[in-house]
């Protein structure tokens, strides 16, 4: 056994030295690095979530509600001997004056009781970038704590004054860490923390404000459990209980989704690497047929050959997997670095588990894709040393690869963690690969139809020869073209299609689109706000009424998030809607089904629903929807569906009713307007005059979202770079797989008198045709994927990209021309006699 392993090692070193194994190792390293980089990263995030679980909630139990908790529940906490605390969360404008300049910034405000948090500690620092320490209690009355982002945005330092609503506070300390940190994992708004008793004076709690009310409880485990059971049975819609196990399910869900996506992208890179391994092993086997025959000749049994080569590949696999894991570890550090703004928590070191998963993936790839061709080596008859034609390699049957594909499909499904998503990806990849091979084969046959080839014969024998070659190798060439097309698709998606998508998204917002949203305008402020704009000669924008309501029943049947499978639908049902009322259909809306409100105030209540949300929630024309608004309910029938453009930056509503239906409910108002750069000061003035208004700088929000998206793209790109690398490997493997044969043919042509130009000419024609077909296939695939992504994910129309249709085929032809050039150099570099002698 030791002797076998030692010989296998020596064989490995010899094969490595001769360059036979580089492609395989590269493919293996890419596959494993791709899987482990994502694995290590998600492992660290997962560990951080577990580590922080005890202080994630700030208590043992948290009660969350969209409206104030009734005293019956709030009072029950201390009555049961549990420690209570409370907090209120909302978004508001914070203002500061520094050096005579007024600055406003949107912030996530959290007003807490002095004993918050019950579990874990807040940490504060006396100044920006100063060392922090645990805080004994929450902010004192009259003071606030700002996090670094907010104090930087406002340009304030501890000791300065900031305004919030109608009140002014002293900025007492920089908040560096708070419990419920997981909420900050993907939190966009910077944080301001204040004392709960200062809330009322700010005047910010008004109609239409989106406020979350929190109650915290901590104490002995049994008492907490008993209280949890008691309160769960009394929960109303819009109320929920978080405990350590369920802790912030939406954050976990978001992270899990991100992990799945990255994991699938990584596995696709691994699948491509698998194709490269299969092609590379086949070439390895072809090049070892003679050697194996000689070894059989000098006494190696089939079993010995199989043992030796299996051991060689096993060692190769272990080395490749180890290399891939090291690279994966390095790359996960880069991913974490790029996402540092997104994940505002220090991440612990990863465990070894992802490396183990990487090894598993790598070995499955190697066994699944390398073993079928490798097994053929043992069958090489010894007589091949005398008669070369004996024991020619037959391509392994699809059945031989079935095990590998099966194992790999299993890995994909496991990674997807969702049978439907997983099987969609598996089926999608399999169908795309088969379609590529099929279409490539058909195109090759069509292009080289005998009549066509004969038509060229008079003009250029080289053209005829090149095309005839294409036809002769149609099957092998189809596989090469398909592999090339897969690699090119990854390349095009990452470059051209991504750029097109971003452009389409930018174009979707017209240049005069509104860039500020003003929310929370109260009914009694309406005239004053209008006057504010009129006095400053700003076109008074359309102001829309807004009523917050929750969907509670459809056609008389109560609904809850449990009724829906789709995540988005669950979220929509769980949260409050912004409903509006108006008599006329808004200009930027189009009725896509039904008709706009017709009846007067005496008919049946009607509503108009946006068609996307109607699809998600399964609403149809004629359905009766019941909403709860501030404890009251109303029911209305869907009489129209509307199509609207969310990217128009205008005020849009999912649900609109005629005024008479909603007017009686508490209403706030919202408007959108365009502010020129020189009018920036006016917004600060508006905020100062009406401190309760929330002014959202859309451009800044878009910029912020854009920068987050850019970070995500960079992180995802790292994973896609692996896919691209794997694609290029497939491409290379496909090209070198026929190199030996081409060299022999070229040498023969030279022997029978072909000039160098003629040899290169015929090869170039063959390669150009293959490059063209691969480029067209890749372009079609990239365009199709881009179209699906644009319409499904971004709701955009992606125009046909001339650039893409130009870049794809040109890239395909350029790559293969380059290969033809390299190949010609190799072919013509060696003397034909030598090539032919070596190939005897």
């Amino acid at each position, binding site marked *: 056994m030791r002797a076998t392993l030692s010989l296998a090692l020596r064989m490995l070193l010899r*094969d490595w*030295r001769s360059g036979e194994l580089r492609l395989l190792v590269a493919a293996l390293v890419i596959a494993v690095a791709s899987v482990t980089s994502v694995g290590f990263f998600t492992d660290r995030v997962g560990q951080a979530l577990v580590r922080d679980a005890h202080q994630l909630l700030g208590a043992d139990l948290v009660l969350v509600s969209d409206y104030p908790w009734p005293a019956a529940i709030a009072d029950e906490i201390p009555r049961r001997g549990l420690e209570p605390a409370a907090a209120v969360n909302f978004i508001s404008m914070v203002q500061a004056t520094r050096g005579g300049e007024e600055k406003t910034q949107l912030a996530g405000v959290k007003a807490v009781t002095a004993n918050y948090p019950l579990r874990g500690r807040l940490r504060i620092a006396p100044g920006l970038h100063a060392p922090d320490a645990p805080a004994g209690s929450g902010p004192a009355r009259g003071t606030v704590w700002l996090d670094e982002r907010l104090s930087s945005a406002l340009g304030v330092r501890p000791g300065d004054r900031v305004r919030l609503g109608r009140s002014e506070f002293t900025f007492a300390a920089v908040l560096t860490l708070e419990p419920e940190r997981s909420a900050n994992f993907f939190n966009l708004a910077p944080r301001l923390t204040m004392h709960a008793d200062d809330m009322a004076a700010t005047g910010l709690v008004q109609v239409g404000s989106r406020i979350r009310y929190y109650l915290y409880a901590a104490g002995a485990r049994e008492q907490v459990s008993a209280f949890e059971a008691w309160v769960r049975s009394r929960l109303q819609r819009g109320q929920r209980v978080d405990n350590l196990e369920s802790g912030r399910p939406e954050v976990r869900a978001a992270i899990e989704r991100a992990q799945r996506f990255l994991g699938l992208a990584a596995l696709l890179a691994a699948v491509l690497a698998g194709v490269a391994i299969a092609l590379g092993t086949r070439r390895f086997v072809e090049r070892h047929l003679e*050697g194996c025959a*000689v070894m059989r000749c*000098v*006494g190696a049994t089939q079993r010995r050959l199989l043992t030796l080569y299996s051991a060689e590949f096993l060692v190769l696999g272990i080395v490749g997997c180890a290399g891939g894991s090291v690279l994966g570890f390095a790359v996960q550090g880069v991913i974490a670095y790029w996402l540092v703004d997104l994940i505002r928590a220090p991440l612990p070191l990863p465990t070894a588990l992802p490396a183990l998963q990487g090894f598993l993936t790598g070995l499955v790839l190697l066994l699944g894709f390398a073993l079928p061709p490798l097994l053929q080596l043992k069958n090489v008859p*010894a*007589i091949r040393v005398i008669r070369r034609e004996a024991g020619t390699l037959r391509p392994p049957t699809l059945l031989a690869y079935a095990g590998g594909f099966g194992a790999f499909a299993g890995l994909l499904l496991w990674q997807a963690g969702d049978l439907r998503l997983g099987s969609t990806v598996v089926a999608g990849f399999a169908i795309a690969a088969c379609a590529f091979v099929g279409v490539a084969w058909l195109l090759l046959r069509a292009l080289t139809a005998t009549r066509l080839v004969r038509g060229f014969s008079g003009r250029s024998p080289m053209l005829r020869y090149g095309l005839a070659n294409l036809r002769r190798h149609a099957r092998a060439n189809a596989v090469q073209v398909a592999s090339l097309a897969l690699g090119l698709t990854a390349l095009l998606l990452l470059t051209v299609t991504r750029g097109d998508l971003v452009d389409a998204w930018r174009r979707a917002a017209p240049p005069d689109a509104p860039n500020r949203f003003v929310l929370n305008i109260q009914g009694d402020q309406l005239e004053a706000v209008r006057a504010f704009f009129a006095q400053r000669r700003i076109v008074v924008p359309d102001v829309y009424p807004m009523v917050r309501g929750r969907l509670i029943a459809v056609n008389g049947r109560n609904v809850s998030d449990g009724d829906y499978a789709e995540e988005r639908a669950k979220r929509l049902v769980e949260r409050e809607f912004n409903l509006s009322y108006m008599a006329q259909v808004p200009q930027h809306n189009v009725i896509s089904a039904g008709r706009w409100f017709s009846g007067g105030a005496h008919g049946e209540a009607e509503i108009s629903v946006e068609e996307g949300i109607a699809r998600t929630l399964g609403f149809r024309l004629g359905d009766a929807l019941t909403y709860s608004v501030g404890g009251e309910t109303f029911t209305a029938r869907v009489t129209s569906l509307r199509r609207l453009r969310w990217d128009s930056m205008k005020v849009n509503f999912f649900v609109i009713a005629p005024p008479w239906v909603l007017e009686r409910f508490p209403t706030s108002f919202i408007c959108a307007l365009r502010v020129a750069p020189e009018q920036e000061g006016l917004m600060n003035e508006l905020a100062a005059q009406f401190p309760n208004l929330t002014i959202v700088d859309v451009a800044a929000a878009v910029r912020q979202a854009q920068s987050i998206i850019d970070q995500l793209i960079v992180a995802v790109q790292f994973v896609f770079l692996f896919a691209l690398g794997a694609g290029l490997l497939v491409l290379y493997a496909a090209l070198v797989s026929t190199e030996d044969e081409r060299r022999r043919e070229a040498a023969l042509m030279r022997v029978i008198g072909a000039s160098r130009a003629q040899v290169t000419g015929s090869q170039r024609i063959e390669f150009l045709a293959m490059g063209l077909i691969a480029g067209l296939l890749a372009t079609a695939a990239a365009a199709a994927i881009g179209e699906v992504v644009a319409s499904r994910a971004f709701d955009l129309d992606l125009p046909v990209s001339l650039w893409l249709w130009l870049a794809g085929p040109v890239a395909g032809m350029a790559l293969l021309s380059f290969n033809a050039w390299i190949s010609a150099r190799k072919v013509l570099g060696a003397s034909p006699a030598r090539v032919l002698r070596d190939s*005897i």
Partner: protein
Amino acid sequence: MSTDAGTPIVRVSALTKQVRTGDIDLNILSDISFVVHPGEVVAIIGASGSGKSTLLGLLAGLDTPTSGRVVLDGHDLSQLDEDGRAELRGHMVGFVFQSFQLLPALTALENVMLPLELSGRVDAEEAARGMLSKVGLAQRLLHYPKHLSGGEQQRVALARAFVVRPKVLLADEPTGSLDAGSGAGVIDLMFELNRDFGTTLILVTHDENLARRCPRMVRLAAGRIVES
């Protein structure tokens, strides 16, 4: 099993090889019988297509006959499976081919070491070095086949064949890919090694001059022995 001058080391009886091409059975070899004694040097000679290479393949157990038997050092090849034949070859048969059959990825030294390594010999490198210096390539140990001349490559092949001290050496047109000068050198060396190691040599060639240097000739024509 011991082999003395009285017991043949190779016994071929009524050997026939047919191949089927299309609907026609083609007789490559018909009713071939002869014996070779230890230490004998035998040339199998015949024109191209006379069946001599097929006969060599059958003698080595590389191929199986349609009928008849080959007994190698007391082992009936027809009673052995492919792996059994491979093991037998491993410790008693050496090969020299027309096209050298050196592994291009291995150096001269590694090519010679290969059969020893496969049989698990720990002194593979030492033995291979010794054999390469015996064939005059002590200075070319680390050269790859593509950097050696044809004559040198065939010397490496000879070293690889003799390094396992085979009882029988089978040579298939050993000078077929060489010019006259290098060919003669290789043949001289082969005979010299054969003498030194006391190997039985069976040589396939179409070269009458080469065949005449062998004490015994088996002449084939159209798959039959016409002179023995």
